[in-house]
């Protein structure tokens, strides 16, 4: 008696799951297929689903339209800001996890609230300051500004990670006469590597995706890939295939990283609001 009912509800669930999957994935399917179309095919109305694919768009955007250098800029900026955030953030996270001091909660709150500050608030003052300092259109300006979101992420995730390491380890090392730095560096940091890895991936994703700072602070030499993609939209003849090829090149690395850190992505986006 119960079996058919259950089976029917399983089918219903299966269909729902399929719809959820299609809802999420279809735009990516369309992005990739459009990137393989020539402009003539892309401008067929109604759009075609079957056609002879070509890699010409990729060739053109990478080597003619300078998306290649922009991707390299993106990599440089994202990797450097992530490394810097880990270097600065892990000792701070360790201190927040292990030491007691006055104003700890306030400090913690301040780190986290950076999540809520819109980049548009900081972009113009930084634009003026970087002009004065000769940092306009450099990787360094972007690397430093991206710390406003990468550093809080690293601190938040790694503090949690350090808390999960038993304090007895620290205490035993302390009895052996190890310095606080030594304990952090040689005992706790290696054990906290999963947290470091997750927060690095998240920092990389968020830096890679950033547009507003890049658009305002790095108009030419240090232009990142998302800012490059925006410039294709200027002008009347919109090159769909090329735009989607650029988009695919931008999105594929982050999607791979997102899948690797899939369990933690939500944690990173909520910054402690949800466990």
């Amino acid at each position, binding site marked *: 008696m119960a079996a058919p009912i259950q089976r029917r509800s399983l089918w219903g669930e299966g269909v729902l799951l399929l719809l959820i*999957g299609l809802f999420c994935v279809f735009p990516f399917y369309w992005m990739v297929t459009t990137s393989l179309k020539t402009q003539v095919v892309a401008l067929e109305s109604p759009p075609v689903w079957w056609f002879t694919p070509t890699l010409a768009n990729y060739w053109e955007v990478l080597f003619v339209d300078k998306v290649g250098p922009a991707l390299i800029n993106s990599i440089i900026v994202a990797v450097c800001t992530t490394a810097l955030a880990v270097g600065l953030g892990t000792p701070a996270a360790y201190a927040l996890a*292990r*030491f007691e001091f006055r104003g700890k909660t306030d400090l913690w709150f301040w780190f986290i609230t950076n999540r*809520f500050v819109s980049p548009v608030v900081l972009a113009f003052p930084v634009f003026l*300051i970087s002009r004065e300092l000769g940092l306009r259109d450099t990787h360094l300006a972007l690397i430093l500004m991206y710390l406003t979101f990468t550093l809080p992420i690293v*601190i938040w995730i790694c503090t949690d990670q350090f808390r999960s390491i038993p304090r007895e380890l620290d205490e035993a090392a302390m009895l052996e006469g190890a310095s606080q730095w030594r304990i952090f560096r040689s005992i706790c940091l290696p054990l906290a590597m999963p947290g470091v890895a997750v927060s690095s991936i998240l920092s990389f994703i968020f830096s890679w995706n950033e*547009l507003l700072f890049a658009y305002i602070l790095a108009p030419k030499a240090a232009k990142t890939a*998302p800012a490059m993609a*925006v410039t294709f939209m200027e002008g009347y003849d919109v090159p769909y295939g090329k735009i989607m090829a650029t988009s695919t090149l931008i999105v594929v690395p982050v999607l791979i990283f997102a899948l690797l850190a899939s369990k933690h992505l939500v944690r990173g986006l909520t910054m402690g609001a949800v466990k």
Partner: protein
Amino acid sequence: MSFRVPRRTIAAFLGPAVAALAIVGIAPLLYAVWKSLHYFNLTKLAQQRFVGLENYGAVLTDPVFWQAMGRTGLLFIIAVPIQIALGLLIALVLHRPGLTFWKTLARLSLVLPMATTYAVVGLLAQVMLNQKYGVINQMLGWIGVDAINFIGDPTNAFIAVVMWDIWQWTPFVALVLLAGLSTVPPEIEEAAKLETKSNWTVLRYVQLPFLIPSLVAVLILRTADTLKLFDMPFTMTRGGPGSATEFIAVLIERVGNRQFDIGMAAAQSIIMLAITIVLARLYIRLFYREVR
């Protein structure tokens, strides 16, 4: 027990991070406050002068600013309830036992939209929503709906932004709520399911109380992110047609970067920041009282 650590050690561990965030996070903010008290236009640098609160007065009485604010609010009011409803539905489906493999796959696909470069999401909208060449209009044609000019018409462009916001952030809401559902102790959930056949009763009286922290988090984060929203509408419509999709961050970018009026943009962004803070505090007070 806690360690007795000299202050110097604590300062050495925390100092670099605090200094870095102060330089990149607080210094520009203070500079923005200072600039917001000036008339400061990049194309008219000779006329630069201290004007006190004049910019703030101008922003607070500027209909364009409040229209952009209203548009941002409208996007939030329309999109977020839909995201919560759909997200809750998805979370409830994924929370049920069985079909584990397919649920893992669905969960992985849910991760993709929120990780996608926001600028690319806007570009995708351009391609998929085009009146003549767009696949969405082709699909609407299959069910007998005439092609819609999504990007070119003010109302439709706004609807398109809402749709795209729903696409990108419903999965996020679903995963946050799913995490919330897993905080319900299984004994309680199973006991409730033995008591009643109605899923609705279980949801309302057993699961919902555990979901409140997640819902508060969703509301706070969606508020902050909607006020920040720039990349997607910018690459999709540049705030147009007219000013139909000029949300608050897009407006500030236009005033600062395309009209070069940095003093005014600074005043606008400080007011926007104040609104963000007030709203976040309001949510926490409204919802957490119930939990306490």
